[in-house]
């Protein structure tokens, strides 16, 4: 007998895998609070120089909401994709809450070196990136997926390669070109 919450989540994940565009939307109410709670909890303990693993947050959140039996992931790459998308949705939402103007500043604050830049400016850059990424998705799904997994999902190149079924070299090359495209798009939008 399945726990109904797990069964429901598993069904949504299945729909997601079958290309249901609404799936991540449907999943969010289940995991949102838990994910936020996990994020806050873990971040309060992590030191700033410690690299956080967003997928670990997502994994922990799923574990907590599905205490019995666990959620039925199709495979590891399925999880990587879902985790990255959820982290993107949540970070973008938090960026909005930080009162970021859509086109905050001309400067692009998307580097670890920008950690001292005021939150509003960083939030503005994350929102702007989110929108650029939506444009890139229309042009090049693979490049956009690589960026989503690396930047929002915090995945390694090897994990991304596994998730997308491509070589690690392809991931590195896609990412290097996607960065240029996004940087140009962000600069254009910041006029």
């Amino acid at each position, binding site marked *: 007998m399945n726990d109904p919450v797990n069964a429901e989540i598993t069904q949504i994940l299945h729909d997601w895998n079958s290309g249901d565009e609404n799936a991540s939307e449907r999943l969010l109410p*289940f995991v949102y609070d838990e994910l936020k709670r996990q*994020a*806050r909890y873990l971040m309060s303990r992590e030191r700033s120089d410690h690299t*956080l693993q967003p997928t670990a947050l997502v994994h922990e959140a799923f574990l907590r909401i599905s205490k019995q039996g666990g959620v039925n992931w199709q495979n590891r790459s399925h999880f990587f994709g879902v985790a990255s998308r959820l982290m993107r*949705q949540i970070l973008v939402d938090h960026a909005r809450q930080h009162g970021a103007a859509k086109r905050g500043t001309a400067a692009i604050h998307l*580097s*670890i070196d920008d950690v001292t830049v005021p939150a509003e400016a960083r*939030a503005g850059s994350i929102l702007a990136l989110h929108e650029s990424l939506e444009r890139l998705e229309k042009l090049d799904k693979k490049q956009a997926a690589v960026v989503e997994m690396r930047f929002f999902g915090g995945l390694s190149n090897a994990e991304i390669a596994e998730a997308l079924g491509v070589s690690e070299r392809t991931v590195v090359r896609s990412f290097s070109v996607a960065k240029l495209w*996004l940087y140009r798009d962000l600069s254009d939008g910041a006029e």
Partner: protein
Amino acid sequence: MTGYDREKINDAVADALTMEAAERAAFLDAAQLSETERKEADSLLSIAAAADSILDAPAISFSKDFFETNADPLVGKLIGAFTILGELGHGGMGAVYLASRKVGAREQRVALKLLRREMNTSLLRERFRHEREILAILEHPNIAKLVDFGTTEDGIPYFAMEYIDGKPIDAYCSAHSLGRDERLELFQKVCSAVSAAHRSLVVHRDLKPSNILVTPDGTPKLLDFGISKILETAESEMPAATVTKLGAMTPGYASPEQLRGDSVTTAADIYSLGVILFELLSGRRPFEAQEKDPRLILKAVAETDPPSPSSLATEGPGQERRLPISAEASSEAKTLSTPQRPATADNVGNGECGQRRFGLKRSAATSTGSCSNRSQKNLIAGI
């Protein structure tokens, strides 16, 4: 050469990026790109130095402060004609705020439910509208009324309900040290509210003490139709209905069919009413020990009798008169379509034993277990 091949540009640019900047032009010259392709490659490579440092770490590693809690930014804000006074609570889809508006010279307080901004998608807006419409069709003195609804300036739907300044029914009974008869009287009003909802083909699906508030003058009010459902209508139009249903269900009060994730009829509410009645009379829930795991509740419901409420009673209700509570909990909802009389919310309150029996039978005063039929795996308990 003409043409525009994105893959070709990507390949050339990726290769060029592995070289010293000075070597790139010669490499591109030899790469057989069309004029527009070359232009795009040059454009991208011209910002290579500046773009190098972006996205060099996961977003979260320099966005930690986004997750810091801060005071609710909505407090003090105006939504429609309502001023937000504070948060009353929040769930999966929305938050409920205490809000007020002026009506003539009088201040009207409402519970204002607002869809969460991050949940403002067409799918979830539809779910939210559904709850509002259910409230609009329910008119009963023991159901919190819909007062107003609308959309905020930035497109987030909300609705305002009658604000009930009351205590959950279990806490109310304890606080006022109500005796058994008073508890039953209160419970009967709850049953009449649930029955009214059922007559409108609305199943509440999340009946529990915290959704039944009792006002200081002793009127119980049923709240939170957030996961309720209109029977046999609009089911196909409501793809997200099951999402919040399962997310929000409360195992201790949920019927076996809900725990299993099966389809739900009015019988599910009858079951929950039975658990609430049990709790009001004994201070405990019949399967409290198993509530950590829905599977254990299901097993317990199917295989065992709950403990006798009178053996558990630690407060209020008198124990000298014995009343059986019974509920047929384990059989599927299909038993309701048998010729035998089905249980309704009203006859739970009136003490009749129906097909799903979780009712009171005053006349069977001392015959604990008289409604028992183990072959139907009824729950019987004496008080």
